[in-house]
C-alpha cells in the first residue's frame, strides 16, 4: 500500500527540505493524502476481509456470550438473586461495579468525538468512529446491568413512565429513574451520533459493494448523493449533536454518581462524586480508546495508514492530564472527609487503605496514578503502541478497582459495627461480568466487518484542508478552515 504522496500545493524545495517535508508526511495522516479511490478501497478491504481467525473469534465469543452472560443470567433469574455473593450489608456487588465501569467506558467515545470536534482537534479524525462505536456498545453492555441486578427483572418495565390502570407512575424523585432516563437518552443519542456521520460513508460503501451488503448500505445511506443541501444539513445536525451531547454525557455520569451520592451511606454522600466520576469515566474511556486502536491497528488490514503514532501520542497526553485530574479529585475526597471529621466516613476511608481489601485500593492508585505519571510524560513511551496498549489496559484495571472500592467495600463498612461485612463475588457474578465483556468484543468484531471503521469523508476533508506551506527555510503544515 505504497502511499502515493501528493500534496495539494506542490512546491519546489531543496533536497534537505524535501526530507523534512517527507518526515512531516510520515508523521501526520492529515499531511499524507492519498487518492480518494485508493483510500476508499483500503477501507472497504479492511471491512470485508474476514479471516479464518476472525470467524473463530466471532464464534468463540458468541458461544461465550451465550453461556457466560445469558446462561448465567438465566440461571440467576430461575433460581434467585442469591446465587450472587451479595448479602447484608453489601446489597450491590460487581453488577453495579461493572455497570459503572461500562458507562464510564462509553464516555470517551462522545468525549473524543464531540469535544474534539467542537474544538477542531484535527488528530481526532481517523478514530472518531472507532470511539463512537465503543460508546454505543459500551452502553449496550452497561445498560444490561440495571436489568441484571433487579430481583424481579420480569417486571422491569414498571420503571418506564407509562400510564397504567391505576395512574401510578414511576417515582421521579428516585435516582434510579433519573438513571433510567439518562441512560436511555444517552444510548439513543449516541447511537444517532454514530449514525449521522456514517451516512456519507454508507453511500461510499454502497457504491462499491454488491449483493446483500449493497442492499443494506443502500438502505442505511438514505439515498445520499452528496448535494450541497445534504452536506449543509448533515453538518448542521452534527454540530447540534456535538454541542448538545456534551452536556448529556456529563449529566449521565453525574447521575450515575448520584445513585451513590444522594444516599445516606457514609463515604458515598459526597458532593464531589459528580465530577470525580466524570473524570474517572473519561480517564478509563480514553484509555479504552487507545486499547481498541492498538487492537484495530494490529489486526485489521490497512489500519496502520490511518492510525499512527501521532494518535497514540496525543491520546497519551490526554490520559496523563486526566490521570492528574483524577488524582486531584481523589485527594480532594480524602482531605475534605478527613477535615470534616465525620467518624463514620473517616473509618470507611481508612478501611479502604488498611482493611482486608486494601490491595484493591493500592491497585487503583498504582494503575491510575503511578503508572501514567511514571511513563506517560515520556514521548518515546507514548509513541510505542504496544506499551500504550499495556498501560491503558492497566488504567482500566485501576478504574475497575476504583469502582470496586467505592461500591462493595464502602457498603460493607457502615455506621453500625454489628453489620460490617465483606463481600466476595461468586462465579455466577464473575461469569456475567465477563459475559458482558465478551458481548462488547463480539459486537465490536461484527461491526468492524460491517461498517467503515474509519470516517473516510472526515479524513478526506481533513486531508483536503491540510497542506504544507513553505515559510522561510522550512515547510510547515497549514490548515484551511473549510467551514
Amino acid at each position, binding site marked *: 500500500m505504497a502511499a502515493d504522496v501528493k500534496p495539494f500545493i506542490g512546491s519546489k524545495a531543496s533536497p534537505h527540505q524535501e526530507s523534512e517535508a517527507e518526515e512531516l508526511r510520515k508523521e501526520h495522516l492529515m499531511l499524507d493524502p492519498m487518492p480518494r479511490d485508493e483510500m476508499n478501497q483500503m477501507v472497504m478491504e479492511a471491512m470485508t476481509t474476514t479471516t479464518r481467525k476472525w470467524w473463530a473469534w466471532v464464534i468463540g465469543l458468541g458461544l461465550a456470550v451465550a453461556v457466560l452472560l445469558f446462561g448465567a443470567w438465566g440461571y440467576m433469574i430461575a433460581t434467585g438473586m442469591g446465587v450472587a455473593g451479595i448479602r447484608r450489608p453489601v446489597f450491590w456487588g460487581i453488577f453495579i461495579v461493572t455497570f459503572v465501569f461500562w458507562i464510564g467506558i462509553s464516555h470517551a467515545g462522545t468525549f473524543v468525538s464531540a469535544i474534539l470536534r467542537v474544538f477542531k482537534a484535527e488528530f481526532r479524525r481517523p478514530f472518531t468512529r472507532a470511539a463512537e462505536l465503543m460508546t454505543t456498545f459500551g452502553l449496550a453492555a452497561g445498560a444490561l446491568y440495571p436489568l441484571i441486578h433487579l430481583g424481579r427483572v420480569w417486571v422491569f418495565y414498571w420503571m418506564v413512565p407509562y400510564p*397504567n*390502570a*391505576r*395512574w401510578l407512575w414511576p417515582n421521579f424523585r428516585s435516582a434510579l429513574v433519573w438513571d433510567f432516563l439518562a441512560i436511555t437518552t444517552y444510548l439513543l443519542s449516541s447511537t444517532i451520533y454514530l449514525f449521522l456521520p456514517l451516512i456519507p460513508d454508507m453511500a461510499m460503501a454502497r457504491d462499491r459493494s454488491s449483493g446483500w451488503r449493497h442492499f443494506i448500505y443502500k438502505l442505511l445511506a438514505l439515498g445520499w448523493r452528496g448535494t450541497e443541501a445534504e452536506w449543509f444539513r448533515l453538518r448542521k445536525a452534527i454540530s447540534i449533536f456535538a454541542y448538545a451531547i456534551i452536556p448529556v454525557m456529563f449529566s449521565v455520569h453525574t447521575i450515575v454518581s448520584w445513585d451513590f451520592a444522594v444516599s445516606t451511606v457514609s463515604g458515598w454522600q459526597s458532593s464531589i462524586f459528580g465530577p470525580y466520576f466524570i473524570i474517572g469515566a473519561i480517564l478509563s474511556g480514553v484509555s479504552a480508546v487507545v486499547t481498541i486502536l492498538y487492537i484495530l491497528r494490529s489486526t485489521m488490514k490497512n489500519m496502520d495508514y490511518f492510525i499512527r503514532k501521532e494518535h497514540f501520542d496525543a491520546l497519551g497526553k490526554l490520559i496523563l492530564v486526566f490521570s492528574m485530574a483524577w488524582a486531584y479529585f481523589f485527594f480532594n475526597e480524602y482531605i475534605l472527609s478527613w477535615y470534616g471529621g465525620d467518624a463514620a466516613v473517616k473509618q470507611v476511608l481508612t478501611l479502604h487503605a488498611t482493611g482486608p481489601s486494601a490491595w484493591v485500593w493500592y491497585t487503583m492508585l498504582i494503575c491510575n496514578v503511578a503508572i501514567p505519571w511514571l511513563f506517560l510524560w515520556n514521548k518515546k513511551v507514548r509513541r510505542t503502541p504496544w506499551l500504550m496498549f499495556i498501560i491503558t489496559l492497566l488504567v482500566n484495571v485501576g478504574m475497575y478497582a476504583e469502582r470496586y472500592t467505592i461500591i462493595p467495600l464502602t457498603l460493607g463498612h457502615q455506621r453500625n459495627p454489628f453489620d460490617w461485612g465483606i463481600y466476595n463475588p461468586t462465579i455466577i457474578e464473575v461469569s456475567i461480568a465477563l459475559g458482558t465483556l465478551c458481548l462488547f468484543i463480539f459486537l465490536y468484531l461484527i461491526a468492524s466487518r460491517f461498517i467503515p471503521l474509519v470516517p473516510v469523508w472526515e479524513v478526506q476533508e481533513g486531508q483536503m484542508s491540510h497542506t504544507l506551506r513553505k515559510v522561510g527555510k522550512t515547510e510547515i503544515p497549514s490548515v484551511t478552515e473549510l467551514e
Partner: protein
Amino acid sequence: MKSSIPLWQRSSVRIVGALVLLIIMGGAVGGIYYTQIPPEQPIPFPHNFHIGVGAQCSYCHTGAATGPNAGLPTTDKCWGCHQQIEPRNDNLKLVASYGAEGKQIPWVPVAIQPDFVVFSHQPHINAELTCETCHGDLTQMTVAEPQKGQNMGWCLDCHQKMSTPEEFVLLSDCATCHY
C-alpha cells in the same frame, strides 16, 4: 429450477405464515377466554333459583358481615333444607348423596384475589355496599361467574367515588390492601 419468486410471495410460505399467526392468535384468545368463564363446579348451583325463592346471600355466605371471607356453605347448610325436598333431578340427587354420606361439597371459589391483596368483606358490608356491586347480578346467573376487569384501578375508582377526599386518604393507602 431456481424459482424467481421471492420467498415471501410464495403461496406455501404465505399459507404456513397465516397458519402460524392463526395458531398464536387462537392460543391468545383461548387463554383469555378460559380465565373469563366460570370454573366447573361439583354441582351447577342455580343462584337465580335460590334467590328467586327468597334466600338471602348471607344465609349461605355467612361470614360477609363479620370477617374477611364470606365463606362457602357447608353440606349441612344445604342438607338442612334439601333433606325435605324430593331429589327430582340429577343435581338434587347429587346433593342428597353428599348429604347422606356427610361429605363436604368441594365448591370451587370464583371471586378470588391474589395472595398479595388483603380483602375483607366486613368493612364493605359496614359501608352498606350490596353484594351485586362486586359480584354481579346473581338473579341472572346459575353458577357464579367471575366479574371482568376487577383490578386495582377498579378498586381505587370505586373507593374514590364512594368517599370524601379525607376518607380517600385512608382508602387509597397501600397498607389498606397490601401487607
